[in-house]
């Protein structure tokens, strides 16, 4: 999974010039390098806004990995059979590994892992909105593994061609692992969809629950945002939210239908003339409400993460202790 680094809807309409303080000559050289397809490396000059947006995006992606490990992780202990239990463990372990890679990539821009995690647990940083929804059944975990990971791959394959070297290299590795997650998720959903009536019902209900969050996954339509334009020019953001959503629908709706499952949107169809998918506009008020903390699981996810941080603090403190071994006092 999972990082859909959409622009925070709270920030979309900021209109102030982010480039007012930048040296025009350095900025022009920077933009020319990006235009030529060169990668920007940690010690290279970069505009403040570029650094800020990349930190925000990579950090948000890292947070999505560790928070995303929670709804899936709860199914590790309940996975049916050795094959599924082993595969799900390995999958969620990969996701935690991705967080490790991403936090390292973000650290090259000057923000420590500790600071990022602090911002996560205090609610200052965002993570992918989909993880504020619960995974009620085993089938929910299977739908997440297939379709949310599918969405994430579309986003990440695009971003892997971006301009910041460390992020692109992390994404290349992440995408390789994600492609296995996608196969794992698909295999699970196929098994349920072609299984017993109980299993088919389970997976259809899970799809119904997850469809609105999946449609939200790529974020709101961004054609009106000036914010997006500059990020796309700097190759921080590589595709618009709408384009990614179209790509997802194009790749996965036929596969969902092939399995005999129904997508819970009566208006969903591909327009033969435009080649574009038409669908019921997702409820963006709901999206905004959830991203701002009002979703069914926001409080729980952060509470679990905060609890883990607090319980583990003594370990981190111990790791910071110097090389001199602690000597137990005699008296």
């Amino acid at each position, binding site marked *: 999974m999972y990082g859909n680094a959409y622009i925070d809807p709270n920030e979309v309409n900021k209109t102030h010039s982010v480039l007012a303080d930048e040296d025009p000559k350095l900025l022009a050289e920077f933009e020319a390098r990006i235009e030529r397809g060169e990668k920007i490396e940690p010690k290279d000059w970069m505009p403040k806004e570029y650094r800020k947006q990349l930190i925000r995006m990579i950090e948000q992606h890292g947070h999505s990995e*560790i928070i995303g*490990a*929670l709804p899936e*992780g709860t*199914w*590790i*202990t*309940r*996975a*049916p*059979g*050795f094959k*599924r*239990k*082993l595969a799900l*463990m*390995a999958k*969620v*372990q990969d996701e*935690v*590994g991705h*967080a*490790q890679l991403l*936090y390292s990539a973000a650290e090259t821009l000057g923000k420590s892992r500790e600071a990022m995690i602090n911002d996560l647990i205090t609610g200052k940083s965002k993570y992918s909105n989909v993880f504020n929804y619960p995974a009620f059944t*085993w089938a929910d975990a299977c739908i997440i593994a297939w379709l949310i990971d599918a969405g994430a791959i579309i986003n990440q394959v695009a971003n892997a061609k971006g301009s910041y070297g460390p992020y692109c290299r992390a994404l290349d590795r992440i995408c390789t692992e994600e492609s296995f997650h996608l196969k794992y998720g698909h295999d699970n959903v196929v*098994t349920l969809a072609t*299984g*017993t009536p*109980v*299993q088919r019902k389970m997976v259809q209900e899970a799809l119904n629950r997850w469809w609105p969050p999946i449609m939200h996954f790529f974020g709101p339509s961004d054609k009106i945002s000036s914010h997006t334009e500059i990020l796309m020019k700097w190759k921080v953001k590589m595709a618009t939210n709408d384009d990614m959503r179209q790509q997802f629908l194009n790749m996965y709706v036929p596969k969902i239908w092939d399995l005999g499952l129904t997508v819970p949107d009566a208006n969903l169809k591909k327009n033969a003339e435009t080649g574009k998918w038409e669908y019921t506009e997702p409820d963006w008020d709901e999206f905004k409400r959830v991203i701002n903390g009002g979703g069914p699981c926001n409080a729980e996810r952060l509470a*679990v993460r905060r609890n*883990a941080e607090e*319980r*583990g*603090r*003594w*370990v*981190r*403190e*111990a*790791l910071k*202790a110097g090389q001199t*071994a*602690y*000597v*137990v006092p005699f008296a």
Partner: protein
Amino acid sequence: MNVAAIKELLYKVADDQLVIGHRNSEWTGLGPILEEDIAFSSMAQDKLGHAQGCYQILHDLGEAEPDQIAFSRKANQFHNCHFVELPNGEYDFSLMRHFLFDHADQIRFEMFANSSFEPLAKLAKKVKGEIKYHVFHGNTWINKLSTANEVSHIRMQTALNESWNYALGIFEAGSFETELKNEGIFEGENALQNRWLEVVCPLLEKAGLKVPEQHTWEPVLGGRRGYHLAHLEALVTEMSEVFQIDPTATW
């Protein structure tokens, strides 16, 4: 070959692996640092693989399929020691359990590698290569945390005190100790415990920890005979929740 003896041996070993693997996996997403989430997950996957390997041998000896054995039995049909079924608690306890259990595991599978029962010897040769890293991980962390600062030292000493009698319960004798030894299948729990003490005591002392005094040693027994704490019941119910929706379905 004494099949009954082999089956008893394999059941307890496999159940230990399954239950500790399940417990280790519960750290996923909740570890004190990301690297430890990942490490515990790796060890959990290995343990599950070892359990699966043992259940497969049991299946070859006429028992049910590995999935059926693991996901369809009731808690009182499990033969794991109590130590592995205890909840994870805090990281100090989980780490101490992992250290103490994995040293026993390493020696056990080294013994199995020389077993006259070929399928077990073959499995053990693969498994011991993996346990080597579990032990390495346990040693590193026990040493680091026991010597880092006062808080971590006290935590690790407390974890050791709480774990010790449960750890001794790993070596609860089975019904076929003599037969297993005479047939060259397994040297026995007593030999295993002695070798384990020779290994772990110096390591704990080197880390500045005090092994509980011998007159306080009281192995926690019963697990090998199907007597368990309420924790195992909860674990087994959770583990088989989805599988039991339809045990005949393909999942």
